[in-house]
């Protein structure tokens, strides 16, 4: 174990722990733009620089391991001034569009600029906007709002294993792109959206049917994805009784990862084709009915069949897409009421 001092607090951590994590262990949050616990530290944004006594330079806390006896200041005037200056540099290259930006309120850059007192005025916004890349069906890419933190590139490479996007060009011209640069849809992208999930600004945004901002969100509901059997945990973001976005949950077994279906495949919920009323076939066509009528009809017919033909005349298909509780109740009805074990489902398919 290593002992050090951070902002006057004694900290003890294992060897190899970064200053960032050491600080976190005593509830000192150092701001970052490019850091993600799941990724190898990159040290790109430099916002997390801290003052280490005895060192001329500010040390990037995400990549600098804590060492015995270090005395660290995470919010000294020198640190704050450097952060402000770095943020100003980023901001200067960023469209001054917070008023109309959907990310406003959830944007890490905006939050940090606020925290460190970066003034919008005096820095000219970009005059010529690069057109939005809307080629992918599920998300957009706004090159001008990209701050090159590289999280998307690293998530795609290190976690998703696709390496569909890369840095191209050099220096100030550096940007995120992909081979041939024809638009995201023409890359090897599998649209998992795990890059969109980690983007600190509005560079990568999910396409949404309607505009909303963070303060429009009524609630976020933690649930389990309804597609494959991995059981990814996710948050449904709800506005006006509609899912407007899906966020991957970090604390599920999926650790913040989803696939294209889990992340973007929610709009069936509000689809106009949804069944909304019980339907009874009459003369070859369906007509709408009340629950009472439909349920009475079904209960009546079932009783009739049971009385005439007995248990063996019944069968039920349970569902691999319904809940445990739904399935339990169905088998209970078949077994308990109709005294048959003729229940099965498409587990085999």
């Amino acid at each position, binding site marked *: 174990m290593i002992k050090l001092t951070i902002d006057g607090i004694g900290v003890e951590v294992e060897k190899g722990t970064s200053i960032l994590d050491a600080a976190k262990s005593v509830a000192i949050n150092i701001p970052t733009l490019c850091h993600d616990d799941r990724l190898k530290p990159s040290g790109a944004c430099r916002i997390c620089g801290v003052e280490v006594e005895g060192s001329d330079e500010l040390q990037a806390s995400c990549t600098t391991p804590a060492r015995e006896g270090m005395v660290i200041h995470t919010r000294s005037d020198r640190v704050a001034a450097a952060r402000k200056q770095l943020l100003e540099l980023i901001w200067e290259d960023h469209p001054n569009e917070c008023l109309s930006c959907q990310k406003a309120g959830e944007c890490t850059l905006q939050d940090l600029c606020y925290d460190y007192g970066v003034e919008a005025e005096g820095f000219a916004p970009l005059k010529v906007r690069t057109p939005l890349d809307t080629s992918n069906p599920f998300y957009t890419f706004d090159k001008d709002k990209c701050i090159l933190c590289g999280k998307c590139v690293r998530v795609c490479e290190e976690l998703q294993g696709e390496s569909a996007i890369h840095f191209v060009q050099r220096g100030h011209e550096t940007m995120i792109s992909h081979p041939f640069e024809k638009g995201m849809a023409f890359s090897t992208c599998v649209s998992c959206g795990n890059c969109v999930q980690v983007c600190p600004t509005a560079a990568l945004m999910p396409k949404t049917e309607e505009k909303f901002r963070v303060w429009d969100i009524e609630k976020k509901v933690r649930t389990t994805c309804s597609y494959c059997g991995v059981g990814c945990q996710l948050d449904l973001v709800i506005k006006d009784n509609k899912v407007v976005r899906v966020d991957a949950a970090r604390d599920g077994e999926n650790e913040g990862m989803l*696939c294209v279906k889990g992340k973007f495949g929610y709009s069936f919920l509000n689809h106009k084709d949804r069944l909304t009323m019980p339907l009874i076939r009459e003369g070859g066509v369906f007509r709408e009915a009340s629950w009472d009528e439909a349920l009475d009809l079904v209960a009546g017919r079932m009783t009739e069949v049971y009385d005439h033909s007995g248990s063996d005349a019944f069968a039920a*298909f349970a569902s691999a897409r319904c*809940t445990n509780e739904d399935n339990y109740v169905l088998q209970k009805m078949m077994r308990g009421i109709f005294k048959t074990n003729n*229940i099965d489902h498409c587990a085999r398919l």
Partner: protein
Amino acid sequence: MTNSIREVIHNEVIFVIGSNTTENHPVIGAMMRQAVKNGAKLIVADPRRIPLARDADIYLPIQPGTNVALLNGMIKTILEEKLYDEEFIRERTVDFNRMAEALKDCSVAKSAALCQVSEEDIRRAARLYASSHKSGIYYAMGITQHSRGTEGVYNIANLAMMTGNVGVEFAGVNPLRGQSNVQGSCDLGGLPDVYPGYQKVADEKAKARFEASWGVQGLSREPGLTLPKMVDKALEGKIKMIYIMGENPMVSDPDLTHFEAALDNLDFLVVQDIFMTETAQKADVVLPAAAFAEKDGTFTNTERRIQRIRKALDPPGEAKADWWIINELMKRMGYQNAFANPEEIMAEIAGVTPIYGGIDYERIDSKGLQWPVKDKSHPGTPYLHRDRFTRGLGQFMPVTYTESAETADEAYPLILTTGRLLYHYHTRSMTGRIPGLNEVVGESYVEICPKTAALYGLENGEWVTVRSRRGEIKIKVKITEDIKEDVVFIPFHFADAAVNRLTNVALDPIADIPELKVAAVRIEKLA
């Protein structure tokens, strides 16, 4: 899965057979790639060059229907080269020698010939798999949907047991379940021979337990019919009424022509679903169900983790949760002990289902638990068979190769195999209604290799008829290098060009699983 999802990234060897993991279980597929980046070795066996094949250290493009032969080749290599774990075999298993004896006439060379891969590759795969005690096997329907699917599963267990790769962390025998709650629907009695918790219906004690809990008498000890058998009985007129909850067998089941006739022969069909599916269109009564985001409950995932789903939205119109609908029916048929909410149902489940014994909504509120969870203080079970197998000693089950029920011949010279795509889910009743997904893949296709395409004079995008002994469909050609010669692949999601008009209903004798992965077909150019 015997083991847990997060263990994947700690595997030293990953053996993927009959699973297109990155497309069908994308997050687990991504973890496999993370493991490979961490230095894990990857073996992939699949007739198609699935995306994971490019990450593989050893890729075995086996002929459809030869899983057992491949596994036998690997087992034989391990026997011949004495790569097995003697201590594990001695302490934890029985009948190892019987298995070895049964494979007396097998040879790796024969396996190689059947699988159409090189003997050395099979040996390399076997050596690699046996080289670690952190070797995990991952499989899916590519193993089970065969007329000898159960034998494939036995053989996977044989391979794992002989190398000591089961009952320990970071290894295991890991079937990847395809649907959100396929594990839970099996766990909770959605099968004809077992009550919830895999308690045999034939077992008198189980019967008594459920009778007591439910307050009913005369539960049947006769195992019920499996789904394919139900279809036969319906055709015979013995089954008169079918109740279908949230399934669309009119697309997903094999030999649809046969199935459709069975539904038409029923007196009464009730379907409850969220959309007017192909199956619902056949119903006498269709009941509108709430979707997953519109109700409370639990799903059990592929690693046996019971997790909450929560109501986030009001269902559209009059749609109701499935449990509520059935609960109402039961009330109308005179059942008194109705449920007020899903939490109550889970309380009853916990009372009668030992593996769910410790589950309640409060405990799984922030993080689900993996069964068995025997009681309220049990922490759940990240991996199964620790120290001892559920049945005691691990049973080696000798398996010899039997060819698929249908093989290529002059009339039907190509082998058809089926599967899922990343961008769609099951019968597309959900994903078919999401514009983006259909922008990426909007219609079905038949994958065919350039050489076979050239043989039939086919061009990319051309419409053809694919015909089997059971039916025909019209479909577009997609030429790809990623499939073996003389093998074609059609995704099963699409109701137009429903591949299950072609598939074979030949059943595995033990599990009644149809042989969806192998059917003989021919391709005809449109006139």
